[in-house]
């Protein structure tokens, strides 16, 4: 016990004396929370539309003004010919073309409507398909209005969309909880790994290995410092989310912290494995970087796990951030309870045990 105290004192002194780490712990969550929620957005806005108006009717005027009014769409031009609009699309000035055929308004009245065409640039598949959908929605709205002006009784909106849990459809609200996971990976996964390999490179680990210090105690002393740092970081990030975005957790904060702590245990254990298997900083960084890429892209951070191929979905069960991100999003946005999240907590606990056993087994005080 007293050995642990001596070692923790050493780690705290080194942490404080480092010119970089204490600032990192404060600045990192603030910067991440201030910048990334704005840029990691999948919201598609300002889709530039060129309207080919062959109808010159009241209806086409109404469509044009609707496009101008929408925050998702912006009117690029009203062009006399499809070829001209297509040229703009090819040049990248326009994202989508809406072509209203000749006598469209009249054809509605006859009951045999002509077809309006939408052409979208789908090089960016998300923007293309969402842009086309926005246009289609706008169009449906206008057609419904037109129809009800002809015979009010027959036509109203046929469906109602309600966005539960994230009513304003803010992508930010979806991303902010997940960004906490990234912060934890870097502060409590990367940093202790680099610290431990740093001792290997400096040769100081040898002076420790020749003492009777227990390897668990030595590693634990390091980790405790980073665990505390991790909890400070997550607190700062939560405060920023509240002050800047007005986003607070719907569910219990204790559940969030419990998940965070389990995740910190898991990811720091993982960092220790990485450093045990590496003898230089470069090796450790590459090792960590590879897995962090996988974590970021496969844990449902940016893209929903449900849209991945089946085999990839099975793989995600091995990834600790998957569970932490699910817990964060569910508790934060839906107010899920600890009991609701029991499967995720259990999975994280199992992974924490595996990672830390791995960390203990790969640490060698003595070379063979």
């Amino acid at each position, binding site marked *: 016990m*007293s*050995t642990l*105290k*001596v*070692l923790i*004192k*050493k780690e705290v*002194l*080194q942490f404080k*004396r*480092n010119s970089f780490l204490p600032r990192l712990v404060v600045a990192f969550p603030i910067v991440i929370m201030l910048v990334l929620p704005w840029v990691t957005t999948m919201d598609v806005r300002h889709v530039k539309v060129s309207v080919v108006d062959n109808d010159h009717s009241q209806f086409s005027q109404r469509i044009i003004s609707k496009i101008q009014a929408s925050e998702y769409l912006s009117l690029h031009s009203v062009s006399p010919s499809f070829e001209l609009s297509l040229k703009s699309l090819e040049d990248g000035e326009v994202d989508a073309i809406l072509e209203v055929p000749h006598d469209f308004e009249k054809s509605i009245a006859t009951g045999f409507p002509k077809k309006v065409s939408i052409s979208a640039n789908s090089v960016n598949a998300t923007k293309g398909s969402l842009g086309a959908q926005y246009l289609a929605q706008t169009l449906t709205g206008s057609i419904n209005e037109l129809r009800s002006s002809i015979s009010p009784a027959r036509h109203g909106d046929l469906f109602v969309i309600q966005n539960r849990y994230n009513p304003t459809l803010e992508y930010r609200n979806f991303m902010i909880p997940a960004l906490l996971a990234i912060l934890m990976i870097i502060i409590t996964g990367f940093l202790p790994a680099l610290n431990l390999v740093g001792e290997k490179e*400096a*040769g*100081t680990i*040898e*002076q*420790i*290995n*020749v*003492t*009777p*210090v227990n390897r668990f105690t030595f590693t634990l002393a390091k980790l405790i410092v980073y665990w505390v740092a991790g909890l400070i970081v997550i607190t700062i990030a939560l405060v920023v989310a509240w002050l800047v975005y007005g986003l607070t957790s719907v569910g219990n904060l204790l559940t969030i912290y419990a998940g965070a702590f389990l995740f910190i245990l898991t990811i720091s254990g993982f960092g220790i494995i990485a450093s045990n298997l590496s003898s230089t900083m470069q090796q450790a960084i590459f090792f960590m970087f590879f897995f962090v890429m996988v974590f970021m892209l496969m844990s449902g951070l940016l893209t929903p796990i449900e849209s991945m191929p089946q085999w990839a979905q099975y793989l995600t069960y091995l990834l600790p951030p998957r569970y932490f991100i699910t817990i964060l999003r569910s508790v934060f946005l839906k107010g899920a309870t600890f009991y609701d999240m029991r499967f995720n907590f259990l999975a994280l606990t199992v992974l924490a045990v595996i990672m830390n056993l791995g960390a203990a087994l790969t640490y060698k*005080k*003595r*070379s*063979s």
Partner: protein
Amino acid sequence: MRANDTTQYIIEVNELTKQFGTFTAVDHISFNVKRGEIFGFLGANGAGKTTAMRMLCGLSYPTSGSGTVAGFDVVKEGEKIKRHIGYMSQRFSLYDDLTVMENMELFGGIYGVKSKPLRDRATSMLERLNFLGEKDTLVGSLPLGWKQKLAFVVATIHQPDIVFLDEPTGGVDPITRRQFWEMIYEASSQSTTIFVTTHYMDEAEYCHRVSMMVDGKIKALDSPQNLKRQFEATSMDEVFRTLARGAQRGD
């Protein structure tokens, strides 16, 4: 606490061998070190001195052979050995970002020295070296000679039975070397056994007994006087040259 006080030898080594693949770094060496002795472990670069020493300190497993250090088995009881030894590596390995005093408190604390006696002992050791004024200096900013002396002080702060010194005076000026040997003699007078490697043959003369390692094997082991007589040499330097001439390894 001294383990196994009844035997005369504090280190006993029998046919100790270390192989890295097909390369035999240490080749069936056998020797004993007496309690309280200053034992010089000499040899050219690459002769296998550091490898042998790392096995004795429980930092590396022997491929074959056996031995005891402070009464504990080098193969099975590495962690027990570590309670009774101090080790000063060839490469400076104290914490650069801790102060002189913090390093001493850290390593003393690890061995379980209580903080009050630890502080007293550290203060008196620094005082004797005229170094007390630097106790709050970061170790990283000290000149090499001082780093080496500090490393020795840290290696002996818990008053170990044996202290292993791997080229403690490498790259150090003659005055500091002299002071270093005074420190070694003082530790020895307090019945600490000294196991030291060096390349300076004048230092070999200061040892009670000296072993000469060539290509992983011990070629000679005796007191400096006896070795000089045996090889009809006037200095240890000559003894070394005679023995090392046949070496295949080294730079």
